[in-house]
């Protein structure tokens, strides 16, 4: 009878065994489920449920009443409004005729994407892989056409390209500067610990604080740099009334805050590069640039790719800085998709707000997974090879 305990069933009290022992075993076996249940429940409640519930808003027209929210299903009307309806100019920008530069850019992009798809097809990619590439290529072509029809044709662009501007340009600048600072601080320089702390501080500050600080610092008539602006002949120049200047200044504030994040992660990666590899290369007479390109970079690439991916996902959600520094202005020049959605929500236009939020989710997923699959993984494989 000594093996009777091992064969007992959950919830059943076999003969010769106490009820407590069998429940205990059952709990033991189910412990994994019980331990993760709170976490799963929380995720379902606070992340997945709202995500699906937002769909209800996105396909509805919502009104407030004394008895709660009243939903009228409009299916894809709110999404259509962003592309062809009253929100089109706000979301996509304004289209007139396409310039020659716009046509050239579009055709070159189309050719490159077709070539990329053809290469994937002939190289024996799976159907799933091909489908993913087609989605990525379609998104890339759409963005390229939008870019060509707006900026390259002398027209204003909307919140979608504003968001991509913050993501692509902002993250690139932040990555390059963050990497440079990390590289400097990984060298045996005097006071490097002081600089490490100094460079890290901006990340601790709330984005709202950064927004207000930059708004004050950059005020040309009352700010602390007013004498400087006046000295260089810009005493009457208001960056906040110039679309491009305002966008760049938003990126400046964003970079000041987020470079430390890239800096600190890359610094940790750089410090983990085995010193004997570097010393061996030095003995072999390799230059500093060669050492960085051939030894350091391949070793920090996985971390660099990950940090860039996290930063990009975060950048897609930029809202605090343009809201505080310019309220999305001048006009809608600095309005990101998150801010667009926020403003619609603030106007109680829940349907359009949810639609923009969903479009942002789609854009983020496609761009970030494309970046990961076709840029990061490709380089990782290459580095490993």
């Amino acid at each position: 009878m000594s093996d009777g305990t091992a064969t007992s069933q959950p919830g059943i009290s076999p003969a010769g065994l106490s009820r407590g022992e069998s429940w205990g075993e059952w709990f033991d076996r189910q412990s994994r489920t019980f331990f993760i249940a709170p976490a799963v429940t929380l995720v379902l409640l606070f992340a997945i449920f709202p995500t699906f519930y937002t769909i209800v808003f996105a396909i509805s027209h919502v009104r407030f009443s004394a008895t709660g929210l009243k939903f009228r299903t409009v299916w894809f009307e709110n999404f259509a409004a962003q592309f062809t309806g009253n929100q089109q100019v706000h979301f996509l920008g304004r289209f007139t005729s396409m310039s020659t530069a716009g046509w050239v850019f579009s055709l070159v992009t189309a050719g490159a994407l077709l070539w990329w798809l053809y290469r994937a097809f002939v190289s024996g990619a799976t159907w799933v892989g091909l489908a993913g590439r087609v989605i990525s290529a379609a998104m890339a072509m759409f963005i390229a056409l939008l870019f060509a029809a707006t900026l390259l044709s002398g027209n204003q662009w909307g919140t979608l390209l504003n968001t991509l501007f913050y993501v692509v340009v902002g993250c690139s600048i932040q990555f390059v500067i963050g990497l440079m600072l990390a590289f400097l601080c990984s060298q045996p320089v005097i006071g490097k610990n002081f600089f490490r702390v100094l460079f890290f501080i901006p990340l601790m500050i709330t984005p709202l604080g950064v927004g207000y600080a930059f708004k004050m610092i950059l005020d040309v008539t009352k700010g602390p740099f007013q004498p400087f602006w006046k000295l260089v002949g810009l005493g009457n120049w208001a960056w906040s009334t110039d679309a491009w200047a305002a966008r760049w200044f938003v990126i400046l504030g964003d970079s000041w805050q987020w470079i430390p994040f890239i800096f600190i992660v890359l610094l940790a990666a750089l410090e983990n590069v085995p010193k004997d590899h570097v010393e061996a290369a030095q003995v072999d007479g390799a230059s500093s640039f060669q050492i960085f390109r051939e030894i350091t970079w391949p070793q920090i690439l996985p971390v660099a790719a990950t940090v860039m991916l996290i930063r990009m996902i975060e950048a897609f959600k930029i809202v605090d800085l343009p809201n505080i520094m310019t309220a999305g202005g001048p006009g809608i020049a600095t309005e990101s998709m998150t801010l667009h959605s926020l403003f619609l929500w603030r106007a109680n236009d829940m349907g359009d707000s949810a639609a923009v939020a969903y479009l942002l989710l789609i854009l983020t997923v496609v761009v970030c997974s494309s970046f990961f699959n076709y840029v990061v993984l490709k380089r990782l494989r290459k580095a490993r090879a």
Partner: protein
Amino acid sequence: MDFRKLAVAAASAVALCGWSGVAGAGQYDGITINILTRPGPVIAGAVSQHGKEFEKLTGAKIIVNEVPYAEIFPKVQQDWSTGTNSIDVAVFAAGWGVELAAAGLLENLDPYIAKDGKIDLQDIAPYFREFAQKIGGHTMVIQVDGDFQMVYYRKDILEKNNLQPPKTWDDYLAIAKAINGQDMSGDGKPGYGSCIFKKRNAQSYFAVQTIASTIVQTQGTAQGFQFENATMKPLVNNAGWKKAFELYKETSKYGPPEELNMDIGDTRALFKSGRCGLLIEWGDPGPLQLEDDAKVIKNKLYATNVGSKEVLDRKTGKLVPVSKESAPNAIDGINYAPFSAFGGWGGAVNAKSDPKVKQAAYDFLSFMSQKEQSNVDVTLGWTGFNPYRLSQLKSTDLWVKSGMDEGLAKNYMGAINDALNNPNMSSDLKIPGAQQYTAVVLDTELARYMAGEITVDEALKNIEAGWEKITRDFGRDEQIKQMALAVGPAK
């Protein structure tokens, strides 16, 4: 201690000693009233201060929740209609209440008023009493403020330049141009001809309506200037509004370089430091110039109403000169239509709050509105409360005591009385969706035009389309009915 601080202390003492309204000492012990309004010190500061006084009088605890201006209405609407009900009183624009009342979210305050011997409604100017406070014939909002937008000018600067105060918007631009760049603050720094808060998602859309109303509305308040009230067809895509937009943009030539990114707090700081020659503002600059940090402009900032010599002919869609036919209410060849921008801050009570809380909330609003408190509040610039009671506007005594010289007090009261008594006074929207029509659609397109993203014609076309969409959403017939209730039968 200067007079104004003394006045506040005295008013508080009088309030504490003499409160004998519906509530009594300790009557509301244990009751908490949650109030939502804009961030202080303007409005929220005064509400908080009176909250402390009320707490001493009645035991009710007043908690003031502050949110950015653009978030007040959606927060209240979401809180009340989703059953959250964390807010008992909203202090907001009188015109916003109608949408909440239509959804059954506002408490009818008539029964409370009937038992209240201290509010003295007859002392509230008829426009604010009958239009702003009432919805569908019932008082649902208690005014604590009265709003009109006017033009302010630096009397000393105009006199120095031998210029007369502006009567038309063309005068405004000519004066702004003439004085722009002059030292108006005495510190050698160049001043600005005109200062208007033009930041998006703030309150920029009011000033352009102050200009447009004088060109588009000619036949009296009931005519309106945003819509053809009988059909709710937007009246925005026409030569009148186009001229208003262009005039508004033209003022930027004589304003601070970052004017497009300035909200009302920024421009107030600027004119208090003496850097502005002309402003479009509410009643606040009158008492604000008496504050300690505005010594440069004390008793120098005068108010006036500005009009137009050209008005819109609605049949032809063109601008025509003012005549007896085109603008029967014109004065000396100028059509005035003083704009009750925002309509004044007022308090409304959540219909779903606990009955005892509702009574306490009403008593608090009544307390704030009573003459003992209100007649002091309106003389203090920082409160954000402007005159709305007849007792505040019948003599200069109140204002002279607050520190104004007799000339300024007469001018200030005169400008507000002229606005209030003008039969062509123009009204802010008081229909469902009021906030969306102006604070969202008009504000966004105006901002895009000001930034040079779109032309004036595109902006007006977009506004027309946006307004039509909102009207369709709420129902055209319902909106026509609400408009008639608000300003009277369409003419």
